[in-house]
């Protein structure tokens, strides 16, 4: 039986900043409906890896494939134009550590903005879907509020709705709860759990061990730019294979 084409395939990605290699030769495969988490100490290159996936950082080497299609470069190895890259990015939702909602728009406007102005969805349709998504993240009452007036947890839930409004094939989360007060982490994780349960394909860079353990099918542990360990959460948390992972995990027990 031929192997199913992964939704996302990362193939030998490397990235350096000022001569320091922060991601070295990382490869991953994520299949449809899977949620994987990328764990590791600060500075291990997790966020850079995630940003290389949608080419917010241009990888120095290696390739990313979205549903079998190469991202960032065309078949003849030429770089994609800004326009082509932008169109690929619409298929990958991204949620940032610092939310990055657009402050001049209301909550609902944030959610419908890109569907209307990038994808060309009619405003009426976008509003219907936007309201549905806000309901899903529990913020329908805040539709006309400005991001400024929201708590961090609410902002991040809007950011998730905004990314989902593009109907992406995969969602990338870059430490989505790291900037939140501890008591607000739960509301964001709960939205993410629901998403995973609905079968969304997700790549989550996180420090939330419980999320990695309970929700993910796979855990990728990075250190110093490299994938040190890659296994199921059961195996990783109960029986880590490397000393580095063991030392990392003792800090969270």
């Amino acid at each position, binding site marked *: 039986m031929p192997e199913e084409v992964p939704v996302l395939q990362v193939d030998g990605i490397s990235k350096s900043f000022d001569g320091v290699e922060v991601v070295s030769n990382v490869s991953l495969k994520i299949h449809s409906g899977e949620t994987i988490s990328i764990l590791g100490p600060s500075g291990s290159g997790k966020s850079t890896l995630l940003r290389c996936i*949608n080419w*917010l950082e241009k990888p120095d080497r290696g390739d990313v494939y979205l549903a079998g299609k190469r991202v960032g470069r065309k078949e003849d190895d030429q770089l994609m134009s*800004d*326009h082509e*890259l*932008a*169109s690929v*990015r*619409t298929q*990958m*939702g*991204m949620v*940032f550590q*610092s*939310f*990055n*909602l*657009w*402050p*001049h728009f209301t909550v609902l406007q944030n959610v419908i*903005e*890109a569907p209307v*102005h*990038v*994808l060309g969805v009619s405003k009426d349709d976008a509003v219907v879907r936007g309201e549905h998504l806000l309901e899903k993240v529990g913020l329908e009452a805040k539709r006309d509020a*400005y*991001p*400024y*007036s929201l708590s961090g947890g609410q902002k991040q839930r809007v*950011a998730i709705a*905004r*990314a989902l409004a*593009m109907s992406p094939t995969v969602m990338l989360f870059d430490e989505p709860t790291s900037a939140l007060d501890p008591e607000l982490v739960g509301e964001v994780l709960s939205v993410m759990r629901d998403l995973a349960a609905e079968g969304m394909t997700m790549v989550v860079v996180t420090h939330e061990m419980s999320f990695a353990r309970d929700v993910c099918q796979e855990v990728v542990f990075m250190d110093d730019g490299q994938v040190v360990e890659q296994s199921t959460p059961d195996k990783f948390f109960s029986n880590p294979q490397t000393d580095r992972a063991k030392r990392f995990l003792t800090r969270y027990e």
Partner: protein
Amino acid sequence: MTDWEIVLKEWPRLASGFGTTLLLFGISAVGAFLLGALMVGPLRSRSKIVRIALRSYVDGMRMLPFLIFVYLLFYGLPTFGVKLDAWTAGLLGLTVYHCAYVAEILRGAWDQLPVGQTESAQAHGYHGLRLIRRIVLPQLVLNTAPVLGNQLIYILKDTSFLMIITVQDLTYAASSIQSMYFVPLEPFLIAMALYWAISLLIEGFVRVVHGTAKERGLGHA
């Protein structure tokens, strides 16, 4: 006839000058804003040549007194076979001169904008002009309303230089009444009051935009 009566009798002259000033100000303010906004992206271009060219333009304009620039446009260009009428030279001068300031104000504000704003826009499929128009520019304008308002007032006041190149604006009207009837004070007092009135309108507009910004947690820059 008292001096005031003379000035009142000549009101059509003042009215026509005021109309000219308003028109010059309106068109060049809109033009300078649009051109300045168009330049803000290229000022941060990946291409060094584009960046250096625009930078030189912006700095060149800012180092040049407006009066000399307008002189050059009107009296200097004919030497090279380009003859502009006074209105065209005046409008062109105001627009091309002040758009450099607008571009610089907006560029500075963009440097202050969190990089996450453009990154989240890119992640949602924005690039190029659409990214600037929908995501960046509205925030830049909201963040710099008082400074942009100041620039509008400079544009308004610079229209008065254009009488030097025979544009019959408000200052020209006041000045011609003064020289016809030897009333040195009153026409200029009226002109002053009218400039002041437009400035107050600009201030009011700025206050509305600034209020809109504050409502969104912006405009602290």
